[in-house]
């Protein structure tokens, strides 16, 4: 089928709920409304109120209750309406979801998928455009994924639904309806912990993920450049092998993220390349991200989110070194 990311996810969730009677969805407006982005549209009608739960407006208890459900043998899929609201539930994610397996030495573990829209570029209100992937990855104990295509969104969700640990599933708002692609009707898995080589080339490597993948691809295509484009897909655990291999192959690396630059995923990737491939590089590792400030109100969004022009300029700088 031709599907955008919303449809691909809706389809993935439906297939997983058919496969697994223990899977329940819970969140704000996910039932009759189908979620504010319609990712769960129609699922209440198909699976009923017991499995598609409109919860009270209480983010901490959406995640906390999901933890209890997972302990009780269910496979909950909580939705936080926007990632910026997940900070209210951050305590539950970090103090319990990330630690339960470790705390009990695997006697208890938490199969659950915490879904939330992330990222900006769609002119929303404050705290509707956050990129918290580094925070969740820093919790140590949460798998963090962020697809950039409908195909990967469906495959990663299905893979996540078969895992026994909490997966923070970040869905870039901007990509929900940006483009369609051919997505298989059946169930298939996209490996977690494995990056995708979105483009192969020789002159340099761009390591990126989420909303920036398509922007980077566009620059590469327009300028007819020969570059590796690595789409991380999984932020934690990081696919170090693919990153290092590409860095060694091309000798030049640019890391592109939508999130603010300071203390971000790019810093982690850059440090690992510096530790393991330094002598095979012929230029300093460059990082490109949003400025190190809180996500601005929509009036200033275009000054904040990295765009093709900025990426192109960084590529020039990298190639001139």
């Amino acid at each position: 089928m031709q599907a955008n990311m919303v449809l691909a996810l809706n389809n993935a969730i439906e297939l997983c709920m058919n496969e697994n009677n223990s899977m329940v969805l819970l969140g704000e407006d996910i039932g009759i409304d189908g979620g504010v982005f319609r990712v769960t549209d129609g699922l209440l009608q198909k699976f009923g109120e017991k499995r598609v739960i409109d919860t009270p407006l209480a983010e901490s208890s959406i995640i906390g209750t999901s933890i209890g459900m997972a302990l009780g043998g269910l496979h909950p899929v909580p939705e936080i309406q926007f990632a910026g609201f997940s900070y209210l539930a951050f305590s539950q994610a970090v103090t319990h979801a990330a630690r339960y397996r470790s705390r009990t030495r695997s006697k208890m573990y938490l199969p659950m998928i915490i879904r939330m829209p992330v990222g900006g570029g769609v002119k929303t209100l404050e705290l509707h455009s956050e990129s918290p992937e580094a925070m969740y990855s820093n919790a140590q104990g949460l798998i963090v994924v962020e697809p950039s295509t409908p195909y990967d969104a469906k495959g990663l969700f299905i893979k996540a639904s078969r895992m026994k640990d909490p997966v923070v599933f970040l869905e870039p708002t901007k990509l929900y309806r940006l483009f369609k692609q051919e997505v298989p009707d059946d169930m298939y898995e996209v490996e977690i912990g494995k990056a995708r080589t979105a483009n192969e080339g020789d002159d340099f490597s761009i390591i990126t993920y989420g909303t920036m993948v398509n922007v980077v691809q566009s620059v590469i295509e327009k300028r007819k450049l020969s570059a590796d484009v690595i789409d991380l897909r999984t932020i934690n655990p990081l696919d170090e092998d693919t990153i290092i291999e590409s860095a060694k192959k091309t000798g030049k690396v640019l890391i592109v993220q939508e999130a603010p630059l300071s203390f971000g995923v790019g810093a982690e990737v850059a440090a690992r390349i510096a530790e393991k491939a330094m002598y095979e590089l012929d230029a300093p590792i460059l990082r490109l991200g949003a400025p190190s400030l809180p996500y601005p109100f929509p009036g200033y969004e275009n000054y904040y989110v990295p765009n093709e022009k900025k990426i192109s300029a960084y590529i020039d700088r990298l190639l001139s070194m």
Partner: protein
Amino acid sequence: MINDVFKADIKYMQVMDESGNIDGELFPKELTDNMLIEIYRQMNFARSVDAKVLSLQRQGRAATYAPLLGQEATQIGSAYAMRKDDFFVPNFRQHGVYLARKFPLDLFFLYWRGFEEGNAIPVGFNGTPVTVPVSTQLPHAAGLAYSYKYKGLSSTVVTYVGDGGTSEGDFAESLNFSGVFKLPLIFIIENNQWAISESRKKQTAAGTLAQKAIAAGIDSIQVDGNDAIAVYKATKDAIEKSASGPMVIECITYRMTMHTTSDDPSKYRDQSEVDAWKRRDPIIRLSLYLRSKGLWNDDNESEMHNAHAKQIDDAVAKAETFKPNPKSIFENVFEFTPNILKDEEQEGISNNFWQ
């Protein structure tokens, strides 16, 4: 016009007073002499184990510990009312509940020695590990209760929270959630009057903690938390009607000693207050009752303490044979071990960094 649209009241229940006198009308008929003796033994066992961990901590043989001294009736009374298939979700001071539900004693000591291997909760024990961040366990209890209801099981979840914990957002959210979905969930508020140095009055302007249930549409009761029979009865009654929804039980008790081994209560409360509560000791009053009925004597008392001491010493000895293996912290973060973690583990092993 102006009308009353809502009215509520909170009841307080005591079955056995400080001198061991019983209110015959409230006394649960099913509570046999042998059951009362068992409750008494469990309360004493909890107190002895508590004293042992405290002593081990002072000798450097245990990590920081939160004693339960004074709260035995609340914990054993409620635990004893639970059925085998019921599930309990503690905070960090419910040692009495663990012990009454037969948690392996050597694992208990191992945990408080500082090893999470002690959290290897046996299948069928039906409880979660110690929860440290205050009240964060309450949504878990709600989720567990939802899962039981979802599966059509008749188990009830019993969770515990302190007086300080009732100020947390997770407390309000969990009450609300369990009320909306009519979950089989019992919240036991162990109101021991102190949240470290903050007295009960600093937590809320509400006259009782039990009344916090009212806004969530949940039934609640306040009981004498140093009266094991009242706590047993309130819990048992709540379990019996839990299929129709949740219940809050506020147990009025007292933390007779420090918050944890790192705390010095003389900084914030008077000894006279502690002395007044000593007269309401939960173990003394049950002892008075049992002795008055000819069910207990000095010989029974010393036999019991000797048996407990041996059981405790054996478990401590077993726990102290445990040898840590760092593999257990590296290989239990996820179902799989990511390469980055494998490298970090291997680095420690091959360089002897941990010797």
